[in-house]
């Protein structure tokens, strides 16, 4: 079982890598361990309580049926009647087990979260010390190195490194400081150095950790809109079958073959959609759990469902579509300079430059032009000239050579160089001019580098019907170039928060669902307005409050995974419903001849499985109906495999697997079970 504190510690790089890997393939699921069935048994037994059963109309009918059959079986005990009663109870129990297993996985996580809460004491700025549980909104708390932050809040004074591993599983400490977008701290995390003053922002019992606990435990799990609609459909099917079975008795009496209550109840339980009824809540809980496993917390199941419906994805350019920094991608000599000379000069000018751009120049010289990435002993003797706002250039003085690189405006440019510089700007890049002793040698092209695989990813999204919009503060020219390179459908350039908001509104006016990520306080309104707003855990409390999900890894690309999880959730429900209903065909072929071949011998021709005896046929169908629940628990927890494809392709595939499969499987299953059951004395 996965628990937060057992989670392997990851560095941010590893995290990023992990998600980069995840980008390529389908949503993976949680691993199901058969031992979980055993450990969840006590919970499953507890759920036999009728009040719990009432929440699930389909299983409540089974529960009542089991009770009824038990009473009749006691009245006329036989191997058959008792077996049917026992297996009907198993059906209810297996359904409980599915739910208990799903909940059990969250419980362990909740327990470890609870440990983080237990004994934090809060030192107020006025000198009093009170338990963390008694803090209210607005309290100012002092936290020093080695202490646990007693509640959620914003840093209002100081700067500190904080260990947030208790919440995020990340061991690398993060910096939290007053002001700006890095001020939010979470209760239960530990200050590693320095001293901060925190203004509490959450009411007691409603902190982030509290919400997380409630979420992973599924304690106040409310049925989502789609789950309610499906429950109504399943109840309708149940009513139809109830009517069909209830009306069957008078028809049977008319035909001269009255049926026992036990047989009729067995038929009813086999026909109503018990498979999906039993697994429905487990599917919902497991869906949330899959998010938690990816370090995403959703405030409601509704948000997860909405994620599956998203039509438009707003993605920040920096950090999501491109690496955070611009990198050198090309060296262009001008004024007849030899390329080798330009490479040497560019490298020299950047050797001592520790900025990401500087390092990327050295890297480019090493990878594309075979130069050494490290300075030689001789080169180390040069004198580094740092960048200043006045000179707008940096470089090195070595052996009397003054090698510089800098902004184009810092140099006197020839006509040709000017053209190169303008062209780079026009294509969305940043030009850096290289000069030696005031003679311009050429230009370095710095450009945003789109992360590998993004283009394919956006193509997949497009196939799924999701439009991607890149949001950036860049000018329209730059934005356009990167948008084309990354393959997004549209872009919003020079975006201010209100532009983002307007875009979301416009999309929603057209009936579309919008998802976005954000971290800053100025993202909060847009996060609140969007249908799926994923706040980064590194972001401000305001952002986290406004969104309906929080990504603990603060990885904006995760939005794509969230969409897939949402879709997977719905697909699993639909697939298992189809499977459940398709199963009924075989059950009719098993049970109807068993019931009525005595009155109309020609009906035995429908017994195409050649089942042993009427009793073994009925019992086999009941046993199959119960066992299929257990067999499908892993699928319910893991979710149906989702691969991005067009809606038609998905439907065709799932109809084939779960519709056709649902028709065929029970024929084989009931036939196999019957081979064993007919051996039982008194039945075969």
């Amino acid at each position: 079982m996965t628990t937060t504190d057992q989670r392997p510690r990851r560095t941010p790089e590893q995290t990023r890598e992990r998600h980069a890997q995840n980008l390529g393939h389908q949503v993976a699921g949680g691993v199901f361990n058969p031992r979980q069935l055993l450990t969840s048994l006590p919970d499953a037994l507890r759920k036999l309580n009728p009040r719990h059963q009432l929440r699930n109309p389909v299983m409540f009918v089974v529960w009542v049926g089991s009770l009824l059959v038990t009473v009749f079986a006691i009245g006329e005990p036989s191997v058959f009647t008792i077996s049917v009663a026992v297996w009907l109870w198993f059906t209810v129990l297996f359904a409980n087990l599915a739910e208990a297993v799903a909940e059990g996985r969250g419980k362990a996580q909740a327990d470890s979260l609870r440990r983080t809460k237990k004994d934090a004491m809060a030192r107020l700025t006025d000198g009093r010390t009170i338990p963390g549980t008694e803090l209210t909104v607005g309290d100012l708390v002092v936290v020093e190195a080695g202490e646990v932050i007693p509640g959620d809040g914003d840093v209002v004074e100081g700067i500190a490194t904080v260990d947030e591993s208790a919440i995020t599983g990340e061991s690398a400490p993060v910096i939290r400081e007053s002001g700006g977008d890095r001020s939010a701290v979470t209760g239960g995390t530990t200050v590693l150095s320095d001293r901060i003053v925190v203004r509490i922002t959450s009411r007691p019992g409603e902190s982030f950790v509290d919400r997380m606990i409630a979420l992973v435990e599924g304690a106040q799990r409310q049925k989502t809109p789609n789950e309610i609609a499906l429950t109504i459909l399943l109840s309708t099917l149940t009513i139809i079958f109830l009517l069909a079975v209830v009306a069957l008795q008078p028809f049977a009496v008319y035909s001269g073959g009255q049926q026992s209550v036990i047989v009729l109840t067995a038929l009813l339980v086999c026909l109503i959609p018990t498979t999906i009824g039993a697994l429905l809540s487990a599917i919902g809980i497991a869906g949330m759990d899959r998010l938690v496993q990816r370090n995403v917390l959703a405030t409601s199941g509704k948000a997860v469902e909405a994620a599956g419906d998203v039509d438009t994805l707003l993605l920040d350019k920096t950090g999501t579509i491109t690496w955070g920094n611009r990198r050198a991608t090309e060296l262009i000599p001008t004024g007849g300079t030899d390329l080798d000379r330009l490479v040497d000069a560019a490298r020299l000018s950047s050797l001592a430059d520790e900025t990401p751009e500087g390092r990327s120049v050295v890297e480019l010289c090493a990878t594309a032009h075979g130069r050494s990435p490290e300075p030689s002993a001789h080169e180390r003797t040069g004198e580094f000239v740092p960048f200043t706002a006045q000179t707008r250039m940096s470089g090195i003085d070595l052996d009397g050579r003054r090698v510089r690189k800098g902004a184009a405006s810092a140099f006197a440019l020839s006509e040709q160089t000017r053209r190169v510089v303008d062209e780079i700007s026009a294509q969305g890049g940043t030009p850096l001019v290289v000069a030696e002793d005031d003679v311009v040698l050429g230009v370095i092209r710095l450009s945003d580098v789109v992360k590998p695989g993004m283009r394919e990813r956006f193509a997949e999204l497009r196939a799924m019907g999701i439009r991607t919009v890149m949001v950036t503060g860049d000018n329209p020219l730059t934005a356009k170039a990167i948008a084309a390179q990354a393959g997004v459908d549209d872009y919003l350039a020079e975006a201010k928060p209100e532009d983002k908001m307007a875009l979301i509104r416009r999309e929603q006016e057209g009936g579309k669902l919008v998802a976005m990520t954000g971290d800053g306080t100025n993202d909060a309104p847009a996060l609140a307005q969007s249908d799926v707003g994923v706040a980064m855990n590194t972001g401000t409390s305001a952002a986290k409050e406004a969104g309906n999900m929080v990504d603990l890894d603060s990885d904006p690309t995760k939005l794509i995974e969230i969409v897939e999880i949402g879709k997977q959730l719905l697909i699993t429900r639909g697939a298992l419903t189809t499977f459940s209903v398709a199963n009924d065909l075989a059950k009719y072929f098993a049970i109807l001849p068993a019931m009525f071949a005595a009155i109309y011998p020609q009906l035995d021709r429908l017994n195409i499985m050649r089942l042993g005896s009427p009793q073994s046929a009925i019992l086999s169908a009941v046993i199959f109906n119960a066992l299929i629940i257990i067999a499908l628990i892993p699928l319910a927890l893991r979710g149906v495999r989702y691969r991005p494809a067009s809606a038609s392709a998905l439907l065709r595939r799932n109809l084939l697997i779960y519709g056709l499969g649902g028709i065929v499987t029970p024929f084989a299953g009931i036939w196999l079970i019957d081979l064993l059951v007919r051996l039982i004395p008194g039945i075969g």
Partner: protein
Amino acid sequence: MSSTVAGLLQVGLLVAALAAAYRPFGDYLARVYTRTTHSRVERVIYRLARVNPDSEQRWGTYALGVLGFSFVGIALLYVLQRVQSVLPFAYDRGNVPPGMAFNTAVSFVTNTNWQSYVPETVMGHTVQLIGLTVQNFVSAAVGMAVAIAVVRGFTRQATDRLGNFWVDLVRGTIRVLLPVAFVFAVVLVALGVAMSFRSGVDVDGQTVAIAPVASQEVIKELGTNGGGVLNANSAHPFENPNGWTNLIEIFLILLIPVSMTRTFGTLVGDRRQGYVLLSVMGALWTAMLAVIWVAEANGLRPLEGKELRFGIPSSALFANATTGTSTGAVNAMHDSFTGLGGGAALLNMLFGEMTPGGVGTGLYSILVMAVIAMFLAGLMVGRTPEYLGKKLGRREVTAAAVSILAMPTVLLLGAGIAAVLPGTQGALNNPGAHGLSEILYAYASASNNNGSAFAGITVTSDWFQASLGVCMALGRFVPIVAVLCLAGALAAQKKVPATAGTLPTTGPLFASLLAGSVVLVAALTFVPALALGPIAEALL
């Protein structure tokens, strides 16, 4: 010419005629319900009825209009039958007994036209003309109005208005049913259908009952009503004298239900949406025709009760048309069909009358089924289900579910009780499986507002008159209220634009899904009951 070739020719002619009428007539219907201007006659009617034709109604008001109009219709028709003896052209036929009058009133107002009476001896011409014929027109217009209101649910956005029931009712009657009925009545009279106010004519020394038939005959088929002016219905030479009238009557039965899919496609702005519904209706209808035809052509049962005037192919064609729509007129006795043939006619009704179904009712019934099918399909592609740009959430699914539940509920409960009532065995002509088929058929016919009789069952006892009356009323009005509620929920939504992630509802995939849903829902619900009736018969 062998009867098979003749039959195929008839089918070919029928399909050609329907195909020719499909576009112009379907589009005409669309215009009828969208025009904003009123004719002079209509304005007079609105003034007399104190209706403001330019105001629109919420779904609840619309539904109240349907219910109120229908219940007043039932009351009037009941009273009319109960005082028949004082009306002109009654020919001493006396007042209709209360049970029968109730059953008949409900039957004609619900567009069922189940007849527990023998018209020649029970109904005078006045009740026929100002009672039954009037209901033949307006009950059909009500069905079309409801269907149009449901279509508006899909076409409109962010509104709580579904149109004006009174306007839709008046337009359907005056602009569609009356003109078509008038033209074809003249044609039928020319082809030999009777139209007389006398009570009987002498034929070879025998007095044969006669009535003003032609005026009712057309609307009987056109409005998918089915109530015969004479007891033998379209098997009677006065109603259906020859092969041409037979074919015209079948054409009239199918004309509106088939054309309304065009109306639907035109109104939602995508004709393919209508074609796909038509393809599902057509495929199931053709399949059932093949079953009945083959079963009858190869049946080994004696010729007792078989229709010999038109032959087996024409009987099969008529039977399939009349049970596939909720008409219920017959040109042969379905009770005399083989187990499989009769079972297929029964199954046509158990589909819920949507292949192609009754006037209006067929369209809204198949749309409800499409909503259910798309709900499941939508889940399977990982999106909140939607159909025609409208999301299918809790309210939509609930309304669709209630609409679908009504028919099996009243059918199974009614038939179940009837099967064990002591008097039932005495009311049946046949024991065993065929007897159960007769019971099932009667309740299927009533609950689906079909009205065709399997015959072979005497339904004049108070229990049958009352229970079948209740089945007809609930089978009609519960779905109507539910689909109007569905339309209200749909109209309130904004349209979701179609994207690459939207499941297309025009191709063969959707058609198979929809056809599969129609068959599956009927099969899962009724197979246990059918096993003891038609299936046991057919497997013999």
